[in-house]
């Protein structure tokens, strides 16, 4: 057996010893083939065992992490609920029901009609939470996608081309990371007269590109020094081809992991902005804004802040669990925790 074990065996080592042995046997058959071919063409009947692809492998490891799977289930439920909001929500999120307020004009406690109670204007809290999921998830995904897009481009350019470009981008990243993010977002959104979903997406994207840039920059720095990049250059590849064909595929794992973790942060951030009134404008329901509206009633109607708070917490937790699970699944060395 050759002294250099293929990485694949290292990746699946440990608990999957049986599988590893199978692969080792296959590899041995391979070297025998090579030997046989060189010494007279006798070929043994080598049985080629089907090897699994990267994605199957990642999914197999991800599946083992019960918390991550739970997170994934929650996210799927959230998405289904958000997409099917008109079908799922028991009431309209905007209708102010007469029965939604007590005779004293107070919100109604959770009960048969309003399962999670009603809000200060007599609207159904559950329906508003369901529609609020649309806002949170849309902004979470889009804003994070935008931050990711900027971060990947900046990170790749800085890490690959080095020189003054790198200095410029990475120092800008440092400045960005040192800046109080919430203050910057507040300044940005109040500078724009009419806040809305798209404004939030752009603002959050501008605020959150820096951490992503750092991660991608670091990855690219290590990949560009690998011999296969030199080998690609040797086959006459242009920089663009090297970047898109040879380096970008290596970034898939960190991009997926940080997307998932980033969405959690973004959802929280959107809630914060909406809480201080700079996010989605009423009457569109948003979780942060619902907490803000319910705050004066926290003694008399605690459900007004309890349920939106829980919704935010569960969503953020779910994305974080999935992110952690994915990180472990992509990185076999980190698995033995």
């Amino acid at each position, binding site marked *: 057996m*050759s*002294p*250099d074990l*293929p*990485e*694949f065996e290292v990746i699946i080592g440990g608990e999957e010893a049986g599988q590893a042995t199978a692969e080792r046997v296959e*590899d041995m058959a*391979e*070297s025998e*083939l*090579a*030997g046989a*071919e*060189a010494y007279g063409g006798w*070929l043994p009947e080598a049985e080629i065992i089907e*090897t699994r692809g*990267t994605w199957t492998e990642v999914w197999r490891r991800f599946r083992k992490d019960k918390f991550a799977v739970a997170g994934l289930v929650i996210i799927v439920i959230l998405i289904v609920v958000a997409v099917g909001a008109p079908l799922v929500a028991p009431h309209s999120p905007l209708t102010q029901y007469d029965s939604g307020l007590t005779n004293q004009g107070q919100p109604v406690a959770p009960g048969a009609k309003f399962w999670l109670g009603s809000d200060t204007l007599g609207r159904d809290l559950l329906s508003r939470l369901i529609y609020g999921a649309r806002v949170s998830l849309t902004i979470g995904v889009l804003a994070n996608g935008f931050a990711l897009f900027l971060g990947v481009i900046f990170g790749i350019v800085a890490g690959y081309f*080095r*020189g003054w470009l790198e200095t410029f981008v990475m120092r800008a990243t440092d400045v960005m990371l040192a800046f109080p993010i919430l203050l910057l977002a507040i300044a940005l959104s109040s500078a724009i007269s009419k806040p809305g979903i798209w404004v939030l997406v752009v603002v959050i994207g501008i605020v959150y590109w820096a951490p992503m840039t750092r991660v991608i920059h670091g990855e690219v720095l290590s990949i560009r020094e*690998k*011999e*296969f990049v*030199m*080998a*690609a*250059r*040797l*086959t*006459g*590849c*242009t920089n663009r*081809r090297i970047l898109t*064909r*040879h380096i970008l*595929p*290596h970034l898939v794992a960190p991009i997926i992991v940080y997307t998932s973790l980033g969405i959690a942060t973004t959802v929280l951030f959107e809630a914060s902005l909406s809480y201080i009134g700079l996010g989605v404008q009423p009457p569109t329901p948003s979780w942060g804004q619902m907490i803000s509206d319910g705050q004066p009633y926290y003694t008399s109607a605690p459900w007004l802040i309890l349920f939106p708070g829980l919704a935010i917490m569960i969503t953020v937790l779910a994305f974080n669990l999935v992110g952690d699970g994915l990180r472990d699944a992509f990185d076999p060395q980190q698995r033995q925790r």
Partner: protein
Amino acid sequence: MSWEGDNLLEVTDLAVTFASQEGRVQAVDGISFGIREGETVGLVGESGCGKSISALAILGLVRMMSNSTVTGKVEFMGRDLLALPEHEVRRVRGRDISMIFQDPVTSLNPVLSIERQTTEGMENHLGLSHSDAVKRAIELLEMVGIPKAAERIHDYPHQFSGGMRQRVMIAIALSCNPKLLLADEPTTALDVTIQAQILRLMKQLSRDYGSAIVLITHDLGVVAGMTERILVMYAGRIVESASAGELFAHPHHPYTVGLLRSVPRLDEPRKGSLQSIDGLPPDLAHLPDGCAFAARCELRTEQCRHERPPLAATTPGRLSACFHSDHLVGAPVA
């Protein structure tokens, strides 16, 4: 390309320096040599003597490193590659000159299938369509001895053993019928049994395609059977140049003598314990004024310490950079 000259590759006074914290590191110190069409030449020396850097400099890959300075001329078919702009050199790389790296494990991209990596050069240089390139790649893989190439081309590097991966690298290097192949320690990372196969394969393919080969190695055993001519490098300079047979029979430089003494011979009765060369190669950041080998040399005199010996003819067709090579010319091999 029209070109009439003696040598396919003519390297003149190639020097590479790196700026480091300890000052200027002279990695390659003014080397000159020529490679004829179809010739196999060995470039031999210890680790860190500048062999690999010379190869990378020839391909214009060193000048991309930010802290490097490359001077001299690298004329390939009459054109100085160091003077050409990057996009012109790119057309030469992988097409007219290609290179095989030491470690096939790291020089194949683990996330791309063999298909994509073998076809890349042909698509870049020969303008082949992807399906034509795949057909040719399968032929190449069969030629370098990969069984079931048509199926295995879809596999990923981790599904191949080390020797198989080096075969793939050779297939990639030969895909555009290069006129010159630079092989940088192509067998160092392989099993001894596989080494012989890979070397035989390279030799056979270079004969079939008429490619010249520069075989870079620290292993005299590897170049012995493979090459027609050998260049010995020490501390960034070429210290001896001779045909393979002559070099092994009668080395004309004390460093070569030392190298040969330190190689175990299985085909001759043992004469005693193996000898090593005392001392260490000089620090490339602080090269001595005189001969770089002087401190370790048995033949050194005062002159060697102060004056740098030029690479000069000793007997017809042979060069040696030593003031005292006449002591070695005609002397029985140690």
